């Protein structure tokens, strides 16, 4: 932003920008994509900048459908329209979109929108000939007629229909016949779709690369035709209970293009069926078997010769040491392994596994509660290239083991140590991982400001820090972090009771902060939050539940500066009608949790929710339901807002 301004001032008289070709300005604009406010500033400089920015913009994420006609006129070259922040999109809006964008539009996301029907989709499909991607997830009210409308989009390549529960084989059949170029289709939770619809997709859409059939009532019948697809790379069969070993036997005829297979929660698949993968899907790279058959020696042996395999996910499976050892003896070296919530992971199995897989980049051993420091020693010894290690709740791992992680795995970018015994020594060691961007230290009761200061000093790339209930942390640690990690985007310091406004004042320097959670911090006040509001303009999510000392004084600057705020939780705080009404002026605000506010009156609440036009979700105490007129709620629901009622007793905070 500053750079633009300097350029602009220097060109003030001679208008040097006229000398630059549009392409060059576009290239410059490409670099200021991170913060939406920067682009806004740019476009407000002068008319020519305004026009340039309008021409440059390709992606649009509008918040309200009312503004669609105007913004679509302003941005004629938009090709991706993300409407996931518009809860209400009716057929009218879709007509406007299709008539304005016409052939320039090639992607539209309607995944969180409601209130449109097949009429709108039909107009979209008929007018926007170049549409290649439609996301209709969660359109639970759409029926086959809507699917038939989608089928008119002949050039469609990607289609998401997750949770479209009313669309049946007939609708899918229309899509299969109409959209011949489909490369990706997701039918997750489309529970009315059966073998027939899926089979027809496989017969008609030969270009399919990616197929998500999770939780469909499909059986062995449709699988042979699916596996004949020449280009199929990624297939998800999660929770398809009708699929069994016999189905996978169809793989024996070969599906060499297949790269990723997910058969999580398929209870009827055993190592017998999986053994057909070896002959059939030799180029498989990614295999997900979460919550499926037990990982035994037989299973490990059946997958022995998959030479291209890179990633295996066995989350939630029962695991034997012999099985893990056998996986270790596979001829290949995995780069990604997930054993989270696996029962039966022991030091013996895990250590023999990791010794062989020296190239492991990502390892997830969340909730492997039996492993000790021995495993960590083996892991750190052999897998020195780890970039991601998730080991939440490995409670038997002693504090010394975490020192090893810092010493040996210096390429770590993501580290989840939630609920572990790590202490300041460990943190000091971990601070050597200079690439660390995400660090989770929730419920680590042994850490203090000292350890965190080391992290703050060395891990300059940190963007995400979770200190939930790490009660040893106070202002010193937070200040160190905010000084050392200017790129911090997310911080959670809920229930770190010693935190005061000093922390917040220093955090307000982290201008990229978008998620700020400080539940149950009684010492922070409106002053601190006001500083955050002023400093962190990109704030999207704010949770100040049970911060008793935060009141309306913080809401006013918040309403003024945090124009990007989408989600706020102000329960048990001192916010009153005034503060809430102020918040209502934030046009982006979508979700509001307002429980147990002493100073809140029914009329104040009503005024706030009415004024806040973009609301999609409001959590309220049941108490208000009877005090406010029913038509009010009906009106708001028609605007796309959902009310959630809570009937919890007021909790007195300690």
């Amino acid at each position, binding site marked *: 932003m500053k750079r633009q301004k300097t350029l602009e001032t220097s060109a003030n008289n001679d208008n040097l920008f006229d000398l630059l070709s549009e392409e060059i300005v576009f290239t410059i604009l490409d670099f200021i994509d991170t913060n939406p406010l920067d682009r806004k500033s740019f476009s407000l400089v002068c008319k020519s900048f305004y026009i340039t920015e309008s021409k440059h913009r390709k992606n649009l994420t509008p918040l309200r459908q009312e503004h669609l006609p105007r913004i679509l006129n302003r941005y004629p070259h938009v090709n991706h329209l993300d409407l996931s922040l518009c809860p209400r999109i009716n057929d009218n809006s879709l007509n406007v979109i299709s008539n304005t964008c016409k052939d320039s539009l090639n992607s539209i996301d309607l995944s969180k929108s409601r209130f449109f029907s097949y009429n709108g989709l039909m107009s979209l499909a008929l007018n926007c000939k170049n549409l290649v991607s439609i996301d209709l997830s969660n359109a639970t009210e759409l029926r086959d007629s809507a*699917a038939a409308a989608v089928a008119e989009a002949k050039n469609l390549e990607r289609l998401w229909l997750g949770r479209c529960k009313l669309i049946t084989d007939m609708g899918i*059949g229309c899509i299969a016949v109409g959209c011949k170029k489909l490369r990706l289709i997701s039918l997750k939770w489309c529970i009315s779709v059966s073998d*027939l619809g899926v089979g027809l997709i496989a017969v008609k859409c030969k270009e399919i690369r990616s197929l998500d059939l999770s939780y469909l009532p499909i059986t062995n019948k449709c699988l042979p035709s699916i596996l004949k697809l020449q280009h199929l790379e990624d297939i998800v069969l999660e929770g398809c209970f009708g699929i069994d070993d016999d189905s996978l036997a169809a793989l024996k005829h070969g599906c060499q293009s297949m790269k990723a297979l997910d058969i999580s929660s398929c209870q009827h698949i055993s190592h017998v069926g999986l053994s057909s993968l070896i002959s059939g899907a030799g180029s498989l790279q990614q295999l997900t078997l979460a919550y499926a058959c037990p990982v035994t020696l037989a299973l490990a042996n059946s997958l022995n010769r998959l030479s291209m395999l890179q990633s295996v996910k066995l989350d939630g499976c029962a695991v034997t040491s012999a099985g893990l050892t056998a996986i270790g003896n596979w001829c290949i070296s995995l780069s990604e392994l997930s054993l989270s919530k696996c029962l039966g992971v022991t030091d013996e199995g895990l250590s023999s596994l990791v010794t062989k897989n020296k190239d492991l980049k990502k390892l997830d051993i969340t909730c492997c509660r039996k492993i000790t420091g021995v495993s960590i020693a083996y892991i750190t010894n052999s897998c020195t290239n780890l970039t991601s290690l998730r080991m939440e709740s490995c409670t038997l791992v002693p504090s010394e083991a975490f020192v090893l992680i810092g010493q040996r795995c210096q390429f770590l970018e993501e580290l989840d140590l939630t609920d572990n015994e790590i202490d300041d020594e460990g943190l000091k060691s971990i601070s050597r991982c200079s690439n660390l961007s995400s660090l989770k230290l929730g419920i680590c009761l042994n850490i203090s400001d000292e350890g965190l200061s080391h992290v703050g000093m060395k891990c300059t790339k940190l963007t995400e820090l979770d200190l939930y209930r790490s009660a040893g942390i106070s202002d010193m640690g937070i200040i160190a972090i905010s000084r050392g990690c200017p790129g911090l985007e997310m911080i959670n310091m809920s229930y770190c009771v010693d935190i005061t406004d000093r922390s917040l004042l220093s955090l307000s320097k982290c201008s990229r902060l978008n998620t700020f959670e400080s539940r149950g911090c009684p010492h922070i006040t409106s002053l601190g939050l006001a500083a955050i509001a002023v400093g962190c303009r990109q704030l999207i999510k704010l949770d100040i539940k049970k911060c008793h000392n935060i009141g309306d004084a913080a809401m006013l600057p918040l309403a003024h500066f945090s124009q990007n705020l989408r989600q706020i939780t102000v329960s048990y705080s001192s916010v009153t009608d005034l503060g809430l009404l102020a918040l209502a002026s934030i046009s982006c605000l979508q979700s509001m949790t307002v429980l147990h506010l002493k100073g809140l009156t029914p009329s104040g609440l009503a005024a706030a929710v009415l004024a806040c036009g973009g609301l999609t979700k409001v959590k309220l105490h049941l108490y208000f339901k009877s005090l406010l007129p029913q038509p009010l709620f009906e009106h708001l629901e028609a605007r796309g807002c959902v009310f959630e009622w809570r009937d919890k007793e007021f909790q007195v905070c300690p």
Partner: protein
Amino acid sequence: MEPNDRLSLDAWANPSSSCNGLPRKMSLENPSFTNFNLQQQEQKWDDTSILNYGIRIEPPFLEFNQASESEYLLSSTCNNQPKVLDQEDGLNNEALQTSKSLDWDPRTMLNNLSFLEQKIHHLQDLVHLIVGRKGQALGGHDQLVTQQQQLITADLTSIIVQLISTAGSLLPSVKHKLSTGPPNGQLGEFLFPPLAGMNCVPQPQHGSGSKAVQPLQHGSGSKAVQPQCVTGSKVSDQCNQMDVTGSFGTEQNLSIEEHEMKEEEDADEGENLPPGSYDILQLEKEEILAPHTHFCTICGKGFKRDANLRMHMRGHGDEYKTPAALAKPNKESSLEPVIIKRYSCPFAGCKRNKDHKKFQPLKTILCVKNHYKRTHCDKSYICSRCNTKKFSVMADLKTHEKHCGKDKWLCSCGTTFSRKDKLFGHIALFQGHTPAIPLEETKGPSLSCDKMDGNEASNKSGNINFSFGSNAGGGAQNIIEVKEDADDPASYFSPLSFDTCNFGGFHEFPRPTFDDSESSFSFLEAP
């Protein structure tokens, strides 16, 4: 089966009290012989199953049945079995009687005669009464008078029939002794007692002056003309049948026809007889369009199938009940070299006409009839539901009506399917075809599916009944294989299952064929 068992069965088959009333009434109307109790129980059993049929029948078909005379006749011809059982119960009882005691029993004869005497007395009283009334009220009661006349005619008919059968029982009873059946009497024996040299004989003066087709079919050129000696018989047939068995017959008839219609084109498919290896017969148009081709020499009643006629003939006396009389006429000549007969369509230029270059013969008379009607006649039967589909063969209409509106799986090309998988197979096969979605999408297709299944189930049981009955008409060879198997629950379904017997042949028909309407039902074909 023990009497107690039988009673419980009756209760099972006859759950509603309203059903109970009718059989009893009927048996009172037609008082039987001395062993009345047994007969009544039997009759009750039969009637209840028939009543079940009546309940199941669909109203549109009933209406239709009443509207069309020819159809009614057809239906009555098809159900010769029940007819034997209830309308001519005198005969039936007689038949049972004779078979129960294989030897001719003079005491039975005496019983019969005394019963007849009693009945004549009753009639006499009735006529006396009428005469007395006529004196009181002169004219004005035309309706009453006709009713009375009908009553008397019916009684007279019944008496005559019983008299004839009583007399007729004399001759075959001798034969019974010779043929030495098992002493406990199998059903085949008493239902179809040996019938000496009975041959189906056409009756030219009856119907629309049609020449009989039968001689062509059987190869026997005999054209015996026999005057209608028992005129009352037919009347009684009709008045008895109209109310009770008429409805039953409709359903039975319906299912027969439904399967028949498929036969024609399939029948000679794959058959590759070299030209000249068979006799070509060609019927005239009038013959083809005649409603009946087989006529009873005694009462003149017309039938579509000779087997039905044979079944009917049993009612005319024991001489028609011999295995020989009941056997297929063809079978008798099977020892001689059989000349294959094929049929030609009289329509010049038709592929089925013998003068056509690529002549393809028709296999049976039935094929000829259906072919001629379908190809060369007006399609005069219009579906009352959709008002678009027209048919020239009644059975085709009925089949269509059964499914009309049920074909909810629609393709963009306009083709409808009754099953979703068939539609998807069709779409997978053709380029550019796509499922057609109705504008107003109806909710809950699964519900209607369930309903449909229920209907199918009931149809199935109906078909089972029918299969037996029609087979009896078609071949009779299966019926003769009878064994006692009272425990078989399948017998409960059959209207023909007598209390002591079950038909063993029943199980020989594979059930799935009844589910699949496309499978051929060659065994139903007229020989």
